[in-house]
């Protein structure tokens, strides 16, 4: 069976050749708070062959509403552009940018409000300076990527690696050096359409939460911010796996590798469920993790 991802003609046959933008995609970042529990993405729908103007206005309206729940909605205009590239729309044409203009203006407006409202911590002091935020951002994005592929020890809280006045830990500089180098060395693969899409999809949805901007948070990473972005790495792995499966002519070891990976995820998730049973079990796990550190006694003295 020919793979969906590898057969370009398959995709081209099924995608409507429309110049109308993908505005049904607006629901995509509309978050709804369900009974004060976790915010969730309500819909992930792409309906390409609707060409009603009403959808455009409904999209803008939904986009505005989405800011009421999550500031991450700011990345929607960039995501729309990414979808334009997927559907091979010519980004050099003015119409493509003109239709995005309201989204960019709204994103800028609400983005500035968010930054202003969270720029200072409760103590009144400013957040990490830019030279510290740069390695933090690289570290954060790598953390999200890792947690998507190997979701180990998922917690409700991941403290920042250092205090602002401590100076950046030496090991954090590995990330801003390694990530550009990885992108450069693997560029011959990354430039392929679907890999490019997967990585940008991941990056776009995290751009606001990688601590590059001065947002006051206690946690360096928050798993909930990675829910939407995780589509990117998951798509990436699936694409690479299917491509490898086709190239290696379905040899059993490739199947075996897939089964082991999925099996490990399944078993680990089943095992980790007890940690997430309730607030007490979750906090007890974090407490136990910290108390298990060899330098825990020194930590208590610092307190």
């Amino acid at each position, binding site marked *: 069976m020919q793979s969906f991802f590898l057969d370009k003609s398959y995709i081209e046959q099924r995608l409507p050749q429309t110049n109308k933008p993908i505005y049904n995609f607006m629901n995509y970042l509309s978050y709804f708070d369900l009974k004060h529990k976790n915010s969730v993405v309500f819909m992930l729908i792409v309906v390409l062959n609707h060409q009603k103007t009403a959808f455009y206005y409904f999209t803008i309206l939904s986009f505005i509403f989405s800011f009421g729940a999550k500031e991450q909605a700011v990345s929607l205009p960039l995501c729309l552009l990414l979808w334009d590239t997927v559907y091979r729309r010519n980004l050099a044409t003015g119409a493509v940018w003109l239709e995005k203009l309201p989204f960019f203006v709204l994103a800028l407006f609400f983005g500035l409000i968010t930054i202003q409202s969270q720029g200072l911590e409760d103590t009144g002091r400013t957040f990490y300076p830019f030279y510290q935020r740069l390695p933090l951002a690289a570290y954060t994005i*790598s*953390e999200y*990527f*890792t*947690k998507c*592929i*190997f979701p*180990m*020890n998922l917690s409700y*809280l991941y*403290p*920042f*690696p*250092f*205090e602002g006045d*401590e100076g950046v*830990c030496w*090991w954090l500089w*590995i*990330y801003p050096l*390694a*990530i550009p*180098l*990885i992108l*450069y*060395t*693997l*560029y*011959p*693969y990354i430039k392929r359409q679907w890999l490019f899409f997967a990585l940008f999809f991941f990056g776009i949805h995290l751009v606001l939460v990688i601590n590059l901007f001065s947002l006051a948070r*206690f946690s360096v990473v928050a798993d909930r911010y990675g829910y939407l972005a995780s589509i990117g790495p998951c798509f990436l792995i699936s694409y690479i796996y299917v491509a490898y499966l086709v190239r290696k002519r379905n040899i059993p070891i490739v199947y075996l590798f897939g089964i082991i990976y999925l099996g490990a995820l399944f078993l680990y998730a089943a095992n980790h469920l007890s940690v997430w049973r309730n607030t007490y079990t979750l*906090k007890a796990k974090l407490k136990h*993790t*910290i108390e*298990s*550190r060899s*330098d825990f006694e*020194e*930590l*208590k003295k*610092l*307190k």
Partner: protein
Amino acid sequence: MMDKQVKVRTYIGSFLLALILLINMYIAINYYFIGKKKLSQFFIWQTNIQKINKE
């Protein structure tokens, strides 16, 4: 020649990617790299939250 260059780049990129994944997994397992001062701040923060919850 080009193929060889791409191959070398792929090895370097894959090695760095694996390195970063391993470091991050190591951090995920035991918070080993998290600074002491930062973790001590965490204790204070957690105590404050507990106080608020009790109140």
